[in-house]
């Protein structure tokens, strides 16, 4: 087999720019426009079968494909890192079917597709972040029926979720939700932020960048327009608290970034490093320069 990066082996001659045909892109763009008009509200769309499996980012890929232009610069991260296998696979997919420039730098990207993280570096107005969403329905663990959750959203009846959070506090003293922590968008719709750590939730609030969410298997798109208020659910006496490991990054020394725990031996040895590889790399360079000066 020839290498996947070999354009002769790409086998994509018959495909449209960014894989999807223009009619499908238009359908997805309509869903996106509707989603932007009703922040946090899930819009059903005719998700297509993609050449990557459901659950592996097909929603995000379809949203990215629908908004991508030849001049865009694409960054793809999984778990905050550009070099995790699925991020590499998705980045290669777009290189192959759209030939767009890609980057690992948060600042240089015009579109950032992500799974499970928001970059540490604040995003700008001229950027779009596309989240891969496994389960768009924030109430799904409490009410599995879509017909019923749609009714609850229509009535803004979110008592189920408040009770669930309250029960955590009553039993454990804390809210036990550490990721996919539900947020209220623009004071109206309860929304799943996708399985990002609760640590990242505050970054969504009034973010200058457009935030788009794609769920391929569940066939839903939703959005947060720039500068929209996003509040993590909490109680007056139990305010929302973002969680991070109480350590400094072993590589760049950051005490503010979200950390991955890495086991180094089988005797309890471990180290903590930034999950955002671009952020960590930039800081390491800066620290080295400072030391050299």
């Amino acid at each position, binding site marked *: *087999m020839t*290498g*996947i990066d070999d354009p002769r082996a790409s086998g994509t001659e018959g*495909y449209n720019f960014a894989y999807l*045909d223009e009619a499908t892109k238009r359908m997805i763009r309509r869903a996106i426009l509707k989603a932007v008009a009703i922040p946090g509200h899930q819009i*059903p769309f*005719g*998700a*297509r*079968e*993609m*050449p990557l*499996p*459901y*659950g*592996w980012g097909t929603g995000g890929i379809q949203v990215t494909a629908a908004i991508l232009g030849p001049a865009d610069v694409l960054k793809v991260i*999984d*778990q*905050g890192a550009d*070099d*995790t*296998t*699925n991020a*590499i*696979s998705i980045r*290669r997919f777009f290189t192959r079917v759209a030939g767009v420039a890609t980057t690992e730098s948060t600042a240089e990207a015009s579109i950032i597709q992500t*799974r*499970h*993280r928001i970059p540490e570096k604040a995003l700008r107005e001229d950027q779009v972040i596309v989240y891969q969403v*496994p389960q768009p329905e924030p109430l799904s663990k409490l009410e*599995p*029926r*879509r*017909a019923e959750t749609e009714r609850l959203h229509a009535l803004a009846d979110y008592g189920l979720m408040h009770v669930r959070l309250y029960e955590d506090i009553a039993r*454990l*003293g*804390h809210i*036990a939700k*550490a*990721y*996919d922590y539900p947020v209220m968008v623009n004071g109206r719709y309860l929304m799943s932020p996708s*399985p*990002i*750590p609760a*640590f990242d939730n505050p970054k969504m609030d009034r973010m200058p960048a457009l935030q788009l969410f794609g769920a391929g*298997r569940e*066939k*839903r798109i939703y959005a947060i327009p720039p500068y929209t208020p996003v509040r993590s659910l909490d109680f007056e006496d139990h305010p929302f608290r973002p*969680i*991070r*490991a109480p350590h400094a990054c072993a*590589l760049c020394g950051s005490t503010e970034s*979200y950390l*991955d*725990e*890495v086991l*180094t031996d089988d005797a309890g040895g471990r*180290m903590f*490093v930034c*999950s955002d590889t671009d952020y960590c790399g930039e800081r390491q360079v800066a620290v080295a320069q400072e030391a050299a000066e």
Partner: protein
Amino acid sequence: MYVAVKGGGRAISAAHAWLDETRRGDTSLPELTVAQVEQQMGLAVDRVMAEGSCHDRFLAALAIKQAKGDLIEAAFLLRAYRTTLVRFGASEPVETSAMRLRRRVSATYKDLPGGQVLGPTFDYTHRLLDFALAAEGEARGEGPQAPAPVGEVPRVTELLAREGLMQREATDDAEPGDLTRQPLAFPAARPVRLQNLARGDEGFLLALGYSTQRGYGSNHPFVGEIRVGHVAVEFTPPELGFAIELGEIAITECQMVNQFKGSRTEPAQFTRGYGLVFGHGERRAMGMALVDRALRAEELGEDIAAPAQDAEFVLYHSDNIEATGFVEHLKLPHYVDFQSELENLRTIRRSAVAAEAARDGMAEAARDGTAEAAE
């Protein structure tokens, strides 16, 4: 030491090269051809066409070869290809009473117009491994063949309906929904439910159908008829204004006859469970017909108590391409969410330990206090 995760790209390329190598297997053996798969693994091809939702034996056979015989993976390959094809219109409904039959059996009548045709079936074979097959190269003679029934062969359910004993299906000229264009929504109309089931996982349909037989949503089925064969597909191009035949497809149709007690508005009569699938797939068509009937519980005013009667449960979980994707996505890294769970669990355990220590401290202080008072 920190183990760098760099090099994932090289690992992917190397893994895929290894996959190609294992697909080929021992190179001293001749390579399997797509035509061999198509001819000699015909039922696998049929299943992949059904679940891949694309009637093309060559492409299905190619997908099976590429997927190393993993039929769900093959169906996925076919679906991903199918979704890129241009749609130029919808065919006329196929007419199964005009089917070119290979097989047609009814369990409700000993004999009937068109007769019983056993056809190429595993039924009544003794499941003994045939070691003669292991000695390859033996040409087996052609089996004897009776002439196929000619002309229209009326459906059993139609014969019952003429007598007023079988509920007539509501006819609707509106274009049926298409799951591959519009997402599933509830309540789901029967054409959409049938489309979902026709592409559904065979194992899932089989298990759910089986569950109705064992009492979970019982509906007392009889196989009114199973027919396997080829039907013509006709299409009316707008510029012509009349139907032209595009070709033939192989299908299996199953009509289950089910009891219905009747209601205040309707007299007692039989009701239908319907299965129609690409290729020769009797197990799939029968499972589909059982589940279709179970899903009609609401419309027929029956209690909805069993999984097979629950439309959301059935239709959201029948698709094995969706299911395998989401189940297998658990292999992807989840370091970040797992890390936040770890920190959360540690915090909760720390505060529990602290609370216990505080309680012990208070109890000790209370004991000391009592002791002092006693002195």
